[in-house]
């Protein structure tokens, strides 16, 4: 057991583990100290100074987030001195901040707004610094907007981009009054190494970083009588949306979400999980084909390990940082884009609507999906495959605007076709899920038997660990797959690009070899995506993770290849995995991008 330290906070004695900060010790006493630059996911900055407290014997106040407890320490978190200083600090931040709360995208979700309400900053009369600031607003990227006039320079985004994502698209530049969060030579986020993952948005306390909203465009489409608006919903949306609408973290709201989407006026409410199952068919076959080329044909050129390509943040990351590994990326489009391509071909034909009259909308836990939908390659249906991408948060906004009492809705079912999904499709929303779904199908195709795990739950690939490794021994193969007999299929799974970086370095240095790797750009996978509700930390991610696995367990079909609509789409339209048609519609290519 580690050493305990005795201290008192506001006169209350407490004994806590050595190494904890004053802030953490106060939390144990249920004393809340306000913070802004502090975030549980990130290293300590100690720069906003809002969390200052008084320590007996110290003539300065100390930042409680950055100061470790020490024996005999006496802390006051609410003295007159502390309160006056905090108030000053909030007032100072407001003078640099363009105060247009009612017009702000983060209105109601802003930590600075909350603090100024708490401290009743009503008669702030310091000089407004904004008019002399020449703030820039970057609205060029299709995914992320950056408004420097809302920035409080807490550097949470900078730490997120560097520590969690190992990207470094944004950093601090200049000093003094000109200090700001900037990109490489002040370029737009669209022109730098940014992966559009949106983790900066979920870690930003104010409206400085936000998603580009397409809510109005979608309302316009819904109101247009001449178009048929089809919506797809990603796996992680159904376990995140409730948080934005007053329900607790990890509440499963699939049925209510479908009901709400129908009430919003979408013509057809379908499921990205369907194309997640389709991805398994295509990607699984692609993997087996690559393995056959390597093991049977002795083709040394074949790129292994094969890497998943569902996470557009990861795809852009590898394009920037490891372009030499682009051949390793599965050529499969992400489920969103497979859906889009089918919506304007297979689906359009099925319901007998001209594809130009279809507007395809997706609801995603992700901001990078907005970028992905806008990639020039994503027009294989002859039209833009996905017209508008909304985040989980934007969908919540629409539900609120429509006056829908979400909690009271009765569950409804997805429409068909492209609305049937399996447990395998649902777990795409959690780190390890694509791997698990792929193994459930591939193992069975090769051996004719189910994966050798209780209740199909492949536990080694589950959990929030940064890099997970799993291997599965293939025995008793069917005749046509006997080249895989005895092969130990080696896999790795990572979440968060920092971990992707670690994995790629290990592969590059030859320290590790794998056949198949799953990489998700965001911590926890899509459930922790940049389009999910605030606030987020590992406690929230775990709850969402449990919800996804519950969803999987409760679905009647849990293997992609058993999805009847998947069987049907191959019969009626695509013929077989990796067919000429599926190559045209469901597969894509990638581009090398710059390092900055």
């Amino acid at each position: 057991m580690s050493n305990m330290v005795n201290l008192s906070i506001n006169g209350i004695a407490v004994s806590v583990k050595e190494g904890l900060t004053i802030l953490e010790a106060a939390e144990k006493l249920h004393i809340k100290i306000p913070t802004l630059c502090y975030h549980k996911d990130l290293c300590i900055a100690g720069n906003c100074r809002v969390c200052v407290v008084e320590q007996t014997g110290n003539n300065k106040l100390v930042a409680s987030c950055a100061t470790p407890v020490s024996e005999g320490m006496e802390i006051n978190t609410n003295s007159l001195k502390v309160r006056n200083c905090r108030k000053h600090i909030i007032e100072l931040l407001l003078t640099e901040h363009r105060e247009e709360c009612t017009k702000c995208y983060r209105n109601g979700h802003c930590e600075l707004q909350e603090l100024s309400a708490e401290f009743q900053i009503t008669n702030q009369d310091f000089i407004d610094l904004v008019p002399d600031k020449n703030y820039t607003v970057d609205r060029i990227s299709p995914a992320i907007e950056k408004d420097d006039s809302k920035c409080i320079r807490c550097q949470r985004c900078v730490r997120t981009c560097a520590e969690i994502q190992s990207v470094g698209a944004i950093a601090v530049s200049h000093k003094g009054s000109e200090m700001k969060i900037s990109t490489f030579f002040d370029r737009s986020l669209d022109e730098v190494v940014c992966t559009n993952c949106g983790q900066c948005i979920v870690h930003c306390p104010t409206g400085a970083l936000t998603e580009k909203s397409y809510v109005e465009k979608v309302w316009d489409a819904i109101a247009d009588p001449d178009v048929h608006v089809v919506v797809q919903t990603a796996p992680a949306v159904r376990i995140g949306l409730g948080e934005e609408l007053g329900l607790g973290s990890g509440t499963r709201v699939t049925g209510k979400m479908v009901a709400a989407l129908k009430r919003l006026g979408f013509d057809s409410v379908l499921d990205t999980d369907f194309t997640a199952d389709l991805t398994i068919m295509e990607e699984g076959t692609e993997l087996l084909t690559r393995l056959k080329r390597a093991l049977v044909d002795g083709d040394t050129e074949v790129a292994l390990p094969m890497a998943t390509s569902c996470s557009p943040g990861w795809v852009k990351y590898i394009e920037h940082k490891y372009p030499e590994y682009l051949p390793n990326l599965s050529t499969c489009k992400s489920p969103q884009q497979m859906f889009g391509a089918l919506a304007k071909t297979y689906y359009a034909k099925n319901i007998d609507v001209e594809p130009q009259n279809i507007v395809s909308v997706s609801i995603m836990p992700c901001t990078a999906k907005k970028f992905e939908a806008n990639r020039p390659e994503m027009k294989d249906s002859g039209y833009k495959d996905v017209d508008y991408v909304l985040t989980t948060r934007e969908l919540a906004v629409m539900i609120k605007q429509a006056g829908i009492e979400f909690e009271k809705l009765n569950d409804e079912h997805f429409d068909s076709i492209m609305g049937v999904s399996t447990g395998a499709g649902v777990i795409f929303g959690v780190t390890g899920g694509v791997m698990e779904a792929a193994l459930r199908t591939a193992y069975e195709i090769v051996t004719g038997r189910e994966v050798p795990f209780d209740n199909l739950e492949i536990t080694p690939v589950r959990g929030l660990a940064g890099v997970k490794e799993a291997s599965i021994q293939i025995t008793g193969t069917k005749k046509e797959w006997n080249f895989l007999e005895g092969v130990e299929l080696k896999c790795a799974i990572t979440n968060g690009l920092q971990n992707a970086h670690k994995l790629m370095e290990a592969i590059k240095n030859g320290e590790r070899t794998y056949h198949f790797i799953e990489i998700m750009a965001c911590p926890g996978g899509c459930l922790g995506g940049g389009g999910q509700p605030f606030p987020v930390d590992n406690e929230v991610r775990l709850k969402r993770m449990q919800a996804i696995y519950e969803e999987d367990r409760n679905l009647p079909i849990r293997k992609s290849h058993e999805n009847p609509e998947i069987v049907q789409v191959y019969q009626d339209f695509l013929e077989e995995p990796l067919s000429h048609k599926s190559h045209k519609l469901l597969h894509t290519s990638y581009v090398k991008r710059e390092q900055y």
Partner: protein
Amino acid sequence: MTTTKKQLHRIDLIFKNDEDCKEILRKALSKPNQEIINEMVNSGLKGRGGAGFPTGLKWKLTAESKEKDKYVICNADEGEPGTFKDREILSRVPHKVLSGMAVCAKITGARKGFIYLRGEYKFLVPELKKEIRKFHDILDDLGLDFRVEIFLGSGAYICGEESALFESMEGKRGEPRNKPPFPTECGYLNKPTVINNVETLAHSYTILKFGAQKFRDLGVKDSRGSKVFSVSGDTPIPGIYELELGMTVQDFVDDFGDGDTKAVQVGGASGFLVPRKRFAKTTIGYQGKLTGISLPTGGSMMIFNSSRSMYNVLNNYLDFFEEESCGQCTPCRVGCQQLLKGIRAVKRGEKPTSYLDKLMKLTETMKLTAKCGLGQSVANSFSSIVENFREEMIY
């Protein structure tokens, strides 16, 4: 009380050239570590960069650390407005500074040292490199495994703050770190580090040469030894002077003023302004139980005569801080902007004179909550100028 003008005693220890550097070093290096530490502690030497931390204690704490890698860094990022003594020391007696570093390395176990040289002092590099090469030969002769490198700063004032200096050396943006931990435990590359001002290291040579007592004999009470002052402003004899600590500002002005001195800024822009009425009561030295009203200084003494507008002086300082704040912490980044814009608004009549009181309260918050010494000390010049020259702020 005597009425005759007293001439301040000029000390000649720092710049006195010394031919027997190698012998002094050989003697010092042969002493047991504990003896050197005792000598340093007993001398009463405090940091000459301005903050005044006891040097012996700094060395002792670092020596006690069990870490294998340690560093000795000479802080030559002399950026405080009105200070130019480190430049002189480094160009005239660099071997003394290097010797101080070597002895410190010996007792702490550091094998690597750096001189963090202010970017604007780039012109010193060729000579300094030559001196370092000569010095390395001496160390080889004496058998001390220690090497010194120059690290050139890039011109940011904040990088003189020790933890920002480490960040800068590590290739990062020069931003002060949270403290604790302190450098003696976690400094450059998160290893125990002694970081001393140029002059401090030069004094340590004097102490090693003559012993602690000779150093203690100079100065007063809590402020021992001599100090190199950078004298500038309205004085007929600007320049560098080594004087004893403990003099009153009055004594100083009698010696260096032009007969019309209105105020003296002690310690540069981050120090205090002493108005004429306080000259006699204020001494120059470190604050301590025994010394009473005493002002520490990195050595900058700026003299202002009655032709100077104190509003302009303060405006100038705040302009400097507004630009030189690293910008990371709220009280310093925004506080400096508010103070600068605030006094301008009062001067222009856009804000009532009572706004000055609000700004005074703001400086109190900055002093209490800023992350590092920069933001904390802006209050010093602001409050001492506004309190004493309020009318000049308004009219």
